[in-house]
């Protein structure tokens, strides 16, 4: 599919919008349906889409495997870290009230970072899964 000009142009055009949409779903999750998980899936889908059209090596250049693996771990750490921040600020674990002088603001802040953590881990995992399954030849040899 690498040589099809129409696909290439469309992919280039659509990609930013998909990523934008992921951001929208991420931050609109407070008001409407959506949130970190869905946003993570959409963001990963955008890159998978890119990799399918331009080939796996191009996708790997855009989002290198080592980076994806780090993102996967950073998301969980971020989430767990928000909880530990609550501990240090005098609350219980995952206590968002103490994250800001105004408890409701604190809740907002906590939910925001937690959702970012979820989105990171989910997009990282989905991409990694794609690389793992797609980057494998039928009998285990490298593609």
């Amino acid at each position, binding site marked *: 599919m690498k040589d099809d000009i129409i696909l290439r142009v469309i992919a280039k055009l659509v990609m930013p919008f998909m990523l934008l949409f992921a951001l929208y779903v991420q931050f609109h999750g407070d*008001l409407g*349906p959506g949130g970190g998980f869905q946003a993570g*899936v959409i963001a990963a889908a955008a890159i998978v889409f890119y990799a399918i059209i331009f080939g796996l090596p191009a996708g790997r250049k855009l989002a290198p495997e080592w980076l994806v693996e780090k993102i996967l*771990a950073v998301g969980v750490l971020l989430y767990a870290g928000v909880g530990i921040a609550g501990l240090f600020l005098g609350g219980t674990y*995952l206590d968002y009230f103490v994250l800001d002088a105004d408890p409701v603001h604190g809740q907002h802040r906590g*939910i925001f970072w937690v959702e970012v953590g979820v989105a990171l881990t989910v997009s990282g995992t*989905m991409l*990694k899964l794609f690389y793992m399954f797609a980057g494998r030849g039928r009998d285990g040899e490298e593609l």
Partner: protein
Amino acid sequence: MAVAVVAMATQRNLFGVVVLFSIYSFLMATVLFALDAVDVAMTEAAVGAGVSTVLLLGALYLTGGTEAKPLHRPLIPLALAIAVGALLAYGMLGLPAFSDPEAPIHAHVAPRYLGEGLKETGVPNIVTAVLASYRGYDTLGETVVIFTGGAGVIALLRRRRRNGS
């Protein structure tokens, strides 16, 4: 949906089964949407019809397409499955009626989420509020499950170095 499921059980071409599974997930998402579970519907559409299908197709490519004719007689598994179904039916007969506002799940715990959730967390989407705050620890666990799955797949499918073992 039922048709899709029956077709899935009988179809031996695995590619067909995967496509049916995708259709089934979309139908499931529609039903969930009708039941007011918009967040769940969105996730099911993305995960069931999207991610799972891609994964299944990827695995299908790596493993090959058709299923052999089953050797066992299907009667015993069918009986076992129906027995479990009957048990569930027995339990379900005693559940509160559909959309009964007096039912325990509407009378206990949930009212606080709906009544105070906006005030306490400042988030109008109560599903998000419960997900990330009231039951935020479950979601941490969920993220860890995803992480475990991801890391597990890496451990299983990492490409071997050519000179290595």
